[in-house]
């Protein structure tokens, strides 16, 4: 097992390098002079020239890439112009918030989605199945940012049950119950679409497995139906559900950008959007590489989980 994890970690290196190359190439597409783009059109020529030198923009593309990569490897992601602080510090401050939001949301959509899929499959064409299918259809069609706004209107403004936005109350609060109260709406809004997708997939995966001969074997030896479903069938269906969980994690992470804006959540997504609007290229660049890298590592976790589940995968 350890060898397999190590192998997967090593295979992540070229992917991470690829990510940095892609981000670097995209940033090299900036039309005109990047220093002017960063500093704005009112910048003095001296400042532009200084920045060009600081960023190494006077050097050939390939040198610039290796300088940038080398800096990142030593933990230097550059300095944000709009915030006037190191990019990495800013990201690390905000990454926790994104991780909490996306993490809770991911757990919600995985658990609810798989449960809904299992119920749907075992009652195929029954009332529960039709109801779930209908709710799922609505769920995957509502844009998360619109859903978030409607939730604010209903639960925060009209019913006054939950706080409108933010991560903690401004006065008092700061503890776990306070965080939970602030987290319910954004995490739910973020989870809805992924829940629907996972529910659909789990349903069809379960139906496929329930047709298999080994399910009949389990029934023939007198195993209780609940154990047949939750033990034998779901265990086998998880083999095709887990890769989709990995893909959906990417969608949850993506959706968190919208949700962080709607709910004023102090995460990396909101930082990125603000940075783009302020043309803070260095901050965008660092943020994108950091989050994409985190996602690569999450996918390694998914692969390892998959290999633990399926003994047929050669480790």
């Amino acid at each position, binding site marked *: 097992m350890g060898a397999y994890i190590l192998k997967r970690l090593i295979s992540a290196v070229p992917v991470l390098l690829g*990510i940095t*190359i*892609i981000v670097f190439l995209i940033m090299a597409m900036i039309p005109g002079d990047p220093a002017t783009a960063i500093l704005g059109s009112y910048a003095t020529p001296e400042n532009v020239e200084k920045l060009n030198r600081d960023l190494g923009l006077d050097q050939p593309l390939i040198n610039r890439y290796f300088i940038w990569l080398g800096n990142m490897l030593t933990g230097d992601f550059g300095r944000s112009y709009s915030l006037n602080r190191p990019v990495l510090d800013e990201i690390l401050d905000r990454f926790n918030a994104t991780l909490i939001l996306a993490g809770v949301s991911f757990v919600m959509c995985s658990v609810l989605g798989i449960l809904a899929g299992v119920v749907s499959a075992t009652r195929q064409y029954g009332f529960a199945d039709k109801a779930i299918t209908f709710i799922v259809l609505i769920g995957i069609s509502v844009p998360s940012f619109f859903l978030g706004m409607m939730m604010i209107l209903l639960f925060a403004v009209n019913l006054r049950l939950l706080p409108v936005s933010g991560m903690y109350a401004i006065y008092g609060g700061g503890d776990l119950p306070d965080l939970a109260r602030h987290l319910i709406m954004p995490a739910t809004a973020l989870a809805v679409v992924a829940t629907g997708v996972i529910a659909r997939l789990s349903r069809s995966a379960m139906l496929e497995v329930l*047709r298999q001969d080994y399910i009949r*074997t389990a029934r*023939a030896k007198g195993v209780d139906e609940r154990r047949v479903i939750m033990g034998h069938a779901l265990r086998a269906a998880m083999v095709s559900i887990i890769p989709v969980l990995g893909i959906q994690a990417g969608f949850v992470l993506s*959706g968190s950008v919208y949700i962080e804006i709607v709910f004023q959540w102090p995460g990396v997504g909101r930082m990125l959007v603000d940075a783009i609007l302020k043309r803070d290229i260095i901050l965008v660049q660092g943020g994108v590489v950091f989050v994409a890298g985190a996602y690569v590592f999450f996918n390694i976790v998914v692969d390892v989980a998959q290999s633990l*589940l399926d003994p047929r995968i050669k480790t």
Partner: protein
Amino acid sequence: MTTFLKLLFRNRLAAVGAVVLAAILLLALITPILPLADPDVTATADRFQRPFSTGHLLGTDHLGRDLLSRLLWGTRLSLAVGIVAALVAATIGSGIGIVAGYFGGRTDNIIMRGVDMLMAFPYILLALAIVAALGPGLMNALIAVAAVNIPFFARNIRGVTVGLAGREFIDAARLAGMGHTRIILTELLPNVLSTIVIAMSTTVGWMILETAGLSFLGLGSQPPQADLGSMLGEARSALITNPHTSVVPGIMIFLIVMSINLLGDGVRDALDPRLRSGALTRPRAVTLVDRRGNVPHADQKGLLNIQQLETQFHVGPRVYRAVNKVSLHVNPGEALGVIGESGSGKSVTALSVMGLVASPPGVITGGAVRYEGEDLLAASYDSLRRKRGNNVAYIFQDPLSTLHPLYRVGDQLIEAIQAHHKVPDAEAKARAIELLKAVRIPNPESRIRNFPHEMSGGMRQRVGIAMALANDPDVIIADEPTTALDVTVQAQILSLLDDLRRERGLAIIFITHDFGVVAQLCDRVAVMYAGRIVEEGPTATILEHPAHPYTKRLMACVPELGGGKRELAAIPGLPPVVSDLPPGCAFAPRCTKATEACQQGEIDLAGTATHTVRCIHPEEELA
């Protein structure tokens, strides 16, 4: 194509999706000729008018602009941007995919590595990076969304192209001296076009949503020009005071995405061959029992007594009579063979006993299955479950698919034991090892840690037998347990079963299509054809004096060891489909002795107390 459309529109939800989408598209198309207010003219005095106010059907926004007008123009823009993005992504992505798939080798390798890298990003990060580089704006958002979706097309189309590139017509084109470009454009492209169109139809809704999302973040369309996303984004600051400005564009996005989803699901279902044939089995814990006639009275025959059993498959309007009034019984220590070709109903008979026929489509419509006199078809699920494996156990064919692939065989054995006996794990494990020893698996202590795929076919079959023996059942139903095995292993397993029934007084129902196996193991044999028993009697009698022409022909199919060169007589024709059986003998169309009388009406099983046959021209008269 017509069946496809028929299936698509039989799906009511897909039809609803199509209608809604068509209406929205039509509205977007005719927007310029509708008598609408200018969407960009501000009138701050009229700001935040409620819906249904005079002159503004949907009210006005924070700058007093008519919301209906802005909604329609915004929808038009959003649809246009989404569709253009889809077209761009499809063109570039498919181009990349075709080139990679057609040239293969290193070109393919390098391109697909790059595509994989792009797919390693959560999509929005890539889109944000592109917008960050190019600057906010609708055009740049479109480029970003298209770029993000290119890998999806490249992957799909490459897959299809790789399959096509090796085919003869491509080789032929190459030999005819056509250049690469011409081959790609005239030979490959027409063949992958349908895949491209399907991939596009499934992603266009997604791309509309993504561009709306970027505009919502303020990175797409810039004021005063509005698409649905930026309308929603601008309305957000007035969400609490004037929610209608948010609700209007939000619902429109929802409607567009939902109608595309509905239509897409309909297309997918209509293309799914399994849904087309309507032959989906559904999973239930017990076969459905819906007995229309009277339940036969208990007649004290045998330990397990199947009486007048009828099992049918209801598929759409068709009814397949897989088991038609079958009566069988077996006594302790006895082995009963049930023999017949595939599709004769022998397996369905066996599975009906413990309610294991997949249901629906399977339904037990008549008869009774009595175990020690109790009718199992009337038993509750719980009582049936307690008998499964404990009193009546099964051995199935093909143990690779009948053993759970993800559990160790030891755990599967332990589970079988603990399903009926509350014993501690250690004790159950000791018993599992004992069972593996009983079926003569070497090194059982280490073998219990094997997964099924780590064992040979013969070993897996022994595990299947061990599992059936786990709770010391009274009856074992073995459904072709040796079919997949080679002859030596087959002989070992048969002698194993024979020992068990002599040692433990087990009753065995042995289902097979092989008379050789029957001769070796069974005391009595029943021959099935088209869901009915056509002959039944002691094995020796039937082997020496088969009465039914079908039995005789079936036996002629078995090569005799040492019998020298002898022609194997296959039975001409195929067994009938059991959905539409003519009256009388089902074998008549394939029978050399058939007369008109054979197909006139019901033929009963008749004969002596031990040997019965369902034939009016038997090979030998039964006295």
